[in-house]
């Protein structure tokens, strides 16, 4: 498909640029920003699978991010290899997704969103009181270096890893849009009653998307832990983390391939840019700006940045109206 070829080309370009930057840029702070960008793009995309494509808006996505982060914290502190965290974090994420998704994915609209908040709150309490998870103290990872320890003094390899994860996730999403799962999700999101009436099992397909999205978020969590070297409930499980993830997806555009990347770009530029230039006076101007931007986007461009572009494209091609739920892939 022409559109797909375009996306693959774009992805290849980004990977190439990313590799060049990873090796070319020597400033550690800039590299850290780029690492953060890819990480948030992955998180946003993982959220996008369930909230955008499937249409179940989640405000508790941090729990999956925490699966990977805590897997890292636990394993490394116990002397195991952090690479195992990708596996164990993914497993934990899948189990958690199935456990919590099975009862809740059939809930409509706001009920689901608040259910995700309830679930996330339950998970957070569990982590705080469960023995062996260190409660409020969290885990501090020891300082190491090298591929086997998955820690590096120089940020280049972190950027490469995040880039690889980003590429994998984008490829998976391109695949999703062209796959049967993607088709079913779009149908369910457009009109679940009609979809069910032609035999699309909502629970089954949404669970699949949910589990996949959980695995992606968990992988991002592992990279986060290996970079920050610190994991505790507020930084990986808090409601604000879930909200940050959701806002990245929204600003970029729900249910679009490149939305999360666009949202992550805005977030990184804004959060860091504002903090650098406006912060320091003790006031909350950075929050004011961020909030204002979200309001403006919600009011004027509710499809998000990419959603607006896609909508305009579709209208140019003569599709019937700017409905983001139209049944063809971007």
């Amino acid at each position, binding site marked *: 498909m022409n559109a797909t070829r375009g996306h693959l080309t774009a992805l290849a370009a980004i990977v190439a640029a990313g590799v060049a930057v990873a090796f070319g840029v020597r400033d550690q702070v800039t590299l850290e920003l780029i690492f953060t960008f890819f990480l948030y793009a992955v998180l946003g995309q993982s959220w996008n699978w369930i909230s955008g494509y499937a249409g179940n808006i989640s405000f508790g996505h941090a729990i999956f991010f925490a699966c990977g982060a805590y897997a890292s914290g636990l394993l490394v502190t116990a002397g195991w290899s952090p690479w195992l965290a990708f596996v164990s974090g993914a497993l934990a994420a899948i189990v958690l997704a199935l456990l919590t998704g099975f009862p809740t994915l059939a809930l409509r609209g706001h009920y689901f969103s608040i259910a995700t908040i309830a679930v996330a709150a339950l998970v957070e309490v569990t982590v705080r009181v469960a023995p062996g998870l260190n409660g409020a103290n969290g885990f501090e990872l020891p300082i190491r270096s090298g591929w086997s320890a998955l820690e590096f003094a120089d940020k280049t390899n972190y950027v490469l890893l995040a880039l690889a994860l980003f590429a994998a996730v984008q490829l998976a999403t391109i695949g999703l849009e062209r796959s049967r799962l993607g088709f079913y999700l779009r149908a369910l999101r457009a009109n679940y009653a009609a979809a069910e009436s032609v035999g699309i099992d909502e629970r089954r397909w949404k669970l699949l998307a949910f589990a996949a999205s959980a695995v992606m978020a968990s992988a991002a969590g592992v990279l986060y832990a290996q970079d920050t070297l610190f994991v505790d409930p507020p930084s990986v499980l808090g409601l604000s983390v879930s909200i940050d993830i959701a806002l990245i997806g929204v600003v970029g555009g729900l249910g679009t*391939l490149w939305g999360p990347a666009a949202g992550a770009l805005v977030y990184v530029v804004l959060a860091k840019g504002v903090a650098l230039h406006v912060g320091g006076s003790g006031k909350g101007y950075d929050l004011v700006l961020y909030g204002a931007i979200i309001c403006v986007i919600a009011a004027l461009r509710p499809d998000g940045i990419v959603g607006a572009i896609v909508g305009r494209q579709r209208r140019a091609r003569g599709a019937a109206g700017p409905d983001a739920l139209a049944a063809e892939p971007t």
Partner: protein
Amino acid sequence: MSARVLAVVLAAAFGLTALPGGAPRAADPPPDIVIGSILPLTGALAQTGAGLRAAQELAVDLVNGHVSYPLPAVGHSGLPHLGHARIRIVFADSQGKPDQARVAAEELISQEHAVALIGAYTSSTTATASQVAERAGIPYLNSDSSAPGLTTRGLHWFFRTTPSDATFAANFYQFLTDVAHARKTPTLVKKIAIVGEDGLFGTGAGDAEAALGTQHGYTIATRIAYPATTTEVNAEVQRIKSAAPDAIMIASYLPDALLFMRGFKDQGVTPQAILAQDSGFIDPGFVRALGPDADGIFTRDVFSLDIKHRNHAVPLIDQLFRQRFGGKPLDGNSARDLMGVLVLADAIDRAGSTAPEAIRTALVATNIPGDHTLMPWSSIKFDAQGQNIGGAGIIEQIQDGKYETVWPFDVAVKPVIWPMPAWKH
């Protein structure tokens, strides 16, 4: 089509970020010695961060100035052993988040070429920022984070002037012993209830208090951890009431502190003493909201203007600070951070060099007598783990709506009122 355009835009965006010029790089005149400071300058702790920043900037001016006070490194117009080079602090924002603190530390080291780092107030941000310093082989001095774990990590470059939760808990028990002694009874308190919010602050304080209490032979009648943002504490108060403790040790922020005090009053919980760990209990809103019911409550603090008889610089520095920070007086946070900069400047001066290892050696050799600090400490002297062993808290009691230092007895300005008076109805 436009997907490719988007790709080009994104690729170009990376290219742009690769250009130098994130934080504006100041042109350093050769003699200036740069210290990097990580503070929560934005976010929920922005207010606190601003106060800490003001204190640190005041310290810089004191070091670079020529007015002498009985404080280390002050009044010598810079660092004498480095040709009177001036010190300068470059601030980076942690936003109160551990991953951001990390970036801030990296920025200060790689872009600003700081010779040492200070910060970062919350224990979790200090943890990550100091790890960056450790990797880079740069000294890190913390003056305001109390989690005991920070100095038991085995870091080579980490030093901490402030006492930790373990010391503060020890202060409580020493206080109880001292009061019992003064009253000529073997012990006043047998059962203790430990209450704290469920975050790092409350848990750290509670863990230290529980461990030491058991060690000293007290009965921990109940241990309560509650969600920090809770809007009611009915069950917690009932549990404490059922436990009938002789003393309650509590670590709370202001809203929960108020909920608890009012709950104790309403439900008739009347221990001999309520011992609070700072924070909500020394917030100006505490006395304002409780009125006469605040009287009799003890709180641990790290600093008080009452210690002015130990070092006449205290009220003078307090005045200077008020001028800088909207009339707000010097408090535990600002005093500690100010001292932290002075200690670091003193070490760099004694090192006679900005080489990390030299500064570190000088820090290890630090030995500042307590009356040459702004703090109610016996000294500033680091142990093998980088923890200052001369530090301790003080205990204040609210009497007639004012915080009066009552312990240690040699810095006390008022006697202890024991037991605390009954709740006013």
